[in-house]
Each structure stands twice: as C-alpha cells, then as structure tokens.
C-alpha cells in the first residue's frame, strides 16, 4: 500500500522527536528455546488442521483429536478443572468424567476455532517460571484477524515431553476459568459430580 508508506515518510521524522517513539528497554528474562519451539510447531499444526479445506468433517475431527493429544496434557488438565473435587471423585466417576470432558472440550474448541482459517502463531517470548514450567507468549495473526492477537501458553514438562496445560487470552486463563465454572456447578448441586458429568454429556452431539 502506498498511502501508509507516504505517511510514514512524512510523519516518522517528527515522531522520532517524541521520547515515546523510542523502544522501551526489554527486561532480561529466562527464555526457554525448546518450549518456544514446541508451542510454535504444535499450535500451528492445530490451526492447520482446522483450516484444511480438503479434509472431510470426519477426517478433520480425527486430526483435531490427534493434534490435541500432541499439544495438551489432557489427563492433567482433566483433573485440574475438577478443583477440590478431584480428591473425592471415585475411579468410576473419574473414567466417565474424563470421557465426557474430552468430548466436551473437543466439540467446544472445534466450534470456536472453526471461525478462523489461515492464521499463524509466532512466538514473541517466554518466561521460565521454574524448571519444566514455562509461559510462552505468542501472537496469532493473518487469516481472519484484523490485527495480531496476543495469546500465552502455559506449558509443563510431561512424561511425553512439553505439553500445554493452560492458554491465556485477554488476561483470562481458560483452564482456571473452566475449573471455577465446574466447581461452582458441582457446589450448586450439593457436591454431586454426576450433575456435571450429565451436563457435559447432554451438550455432546448424538453419537452416530
């Protein structure tokens, strides 16, 4: 585009007179290159699965299921979202909740992310909170987005390697929010986890 270039040439020299135009000093922080590489690769693969126009719905669902396995520490997130109830859940409830939650998460995020297509994830930095626990800051841009959207990924070293346990968008961590949502729903049911399992199942589409 030529208009912004012309504007840049005319205005930029004047902007340089403003102290605000100079970049702020960046504080040194412990970055983790392997964590950043993991997020860059896995997150782009996940977006690529959803934007694949050649795949059928069944192929897309299967690829999304696999991409979630490669990206997230599903068992850890599954029990984190139960909060205090993770300690009292029975083995049978644990098995049924895990199935219902997995189905719920895949359906919800497939629907939400289906609006996007052609976006790319680029890493802008990372902070190692402690060994094996890193927050990676990224920007998602291109595709349907008018401007880059900052998204942070909390990843933890799991037996299978790095895995995502939480994602932050506009200051809101999804797993933390999900935990408060689920714990409140169980509290409201007098501590009955079955109510939540039924709720998650009732939202699932009928099995074919």
């Amino acid at each position, binding site marked *: 585009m030529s208009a912004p270039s012309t504007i840049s040439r005319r205005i930029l020299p004047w902007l340089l007179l403003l*102290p605000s135009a100079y970049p702020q000093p960046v504080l040194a922080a412990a970055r983790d290159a392997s964590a950043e590489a993991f997020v860059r690769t896995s997150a782009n693969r996940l977006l690529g699965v959803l934007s694949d126009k050649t795949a059928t719905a069944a192929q897309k669902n299967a690829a999304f299921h696999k991409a979630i396995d490669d990206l997230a520490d599903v068992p850890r997130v599954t029990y984190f979202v139960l909060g205090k109830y993770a300690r009292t859940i029975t083995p049978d409830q644990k098995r049924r909740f895990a199935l219902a939650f997995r189905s719920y998460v895949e359906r919800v995020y497939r629907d939400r992310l289906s609006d996007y297509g052609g976006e790319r994830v680029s890493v802008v930095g990372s902070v190692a909170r402690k060994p094996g626990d890193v927050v990676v800051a990224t920007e998602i841009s291109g595709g349907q987005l008018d401007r880059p959207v900052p998204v942070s990924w*909390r990843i933890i070293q799991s037996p299978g390697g790095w895995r995502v346990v939480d994602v932050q968008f506009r200051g*809101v961590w999804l797993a933390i929010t999900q935990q*408060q949502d689920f714990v409140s729903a169980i509290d409201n049911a007098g501590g009955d986890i079955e109510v939540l399992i039924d709720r998650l199942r009732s939202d699932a589409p009928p099995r074919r």
Partner: protein
Amino acid sequence: MKITSKGVRNRVSSVVTNLGEPGTAINDLAQGRPRAAGVTTSRFLINSTVGGLGLFDVGAKLGLEGHRSDFGQTLGRYGAESGRYVVLPLLGPTTLRDGAGRLVDTMADPVAMATAGASNFGMIRGGVTSVDARANADGFIRALDDAADPYAMMRSAYLQNRADVVRQAKGGVQVLPDFDAARIEP
C-alpha cells in the same frame, strides 16, 4: 447475529477506540507512565487526522501500538483492592473499584467535555460504543452458552481480566496455580 460486514465493524471499532485515547492518555499519566501517554497522544493525533477521524489505525502501522487504560486500573496501580464483584443492569459485571473508576472516566472524559455543546453527539457515541462492546464480546457470550455455570464463568473471566489489566500497569509476575497437584492418572 452479524448484520454488518467485518470491514464495517472494524472501522466502527477503530473510531470508538480512537475517541477513548484521550482518556487513556490521562490515565497513563496518572499511573506515572509518560512514555505510554506519549504513544497514546501520538496515536490520537495521527489517527484523528491522517487516519480519517479514527477510521483507520495509521498509528499502529507506524509502530505505535495501542492499549487501553482506565481509572479502575489506575486505582489498582496504587494498591486499591477490587472490592465486591457485582453485576449491574445494562452495565454488566464490575467491581466496586472498577465501577467507581468507570464513573470517573465518564465524568472526566476529555472528548465528552469537548463535545458537550454538540447535540446528540454524546448519545450517538454512547449507542455506538455499546454496540461495539457487544460485538467484541460476541466470542465470550458464545463461551457462556457452553458453561456449566455461566455466572461463575463470567465472574472468573472478568476478575482475571481486570487483575491482568492492573498487573500490566503495576508490573510483576502472574500468580498461577500449581498444576503438579493435579497429576492424577486417569
């Protein structure tokens, strides 16, 4: 339901954001962030002129990235706690601190003061700002449809968002829960 095109929504959003820049600049100064205030002022001057009254974010193309600051954040920057969480009719979720901050922002808004004599401008701006806020919240409202307890989800998301906004002004690291405690095999 989306009636207008994405391009029109983006332009409306740009104008609404631009009209909020003077208020942001004042709060940046109140928070002791003159550099951020300079960026915001530069953005407002550029976008209001060569950006066609804020229709286009030329400032961002020149490397002047925008941000929002408000008086609730300013109060938080100086240590004010959020206080009780409430959901107000028409205004939606807020806290005592952020509700008071919103009131101050409205009363001290430079654009509102400058256009006080222009009949209907304030009313039109208020209406367009509300529609823009609702459009921007569309994704979150869809998320509430999937919640087991929509009230709890909205409360959690609002309080996290505001805590992060205050942390951006104060600096410091995020306090995050320990996922090790959740290491239970299925």
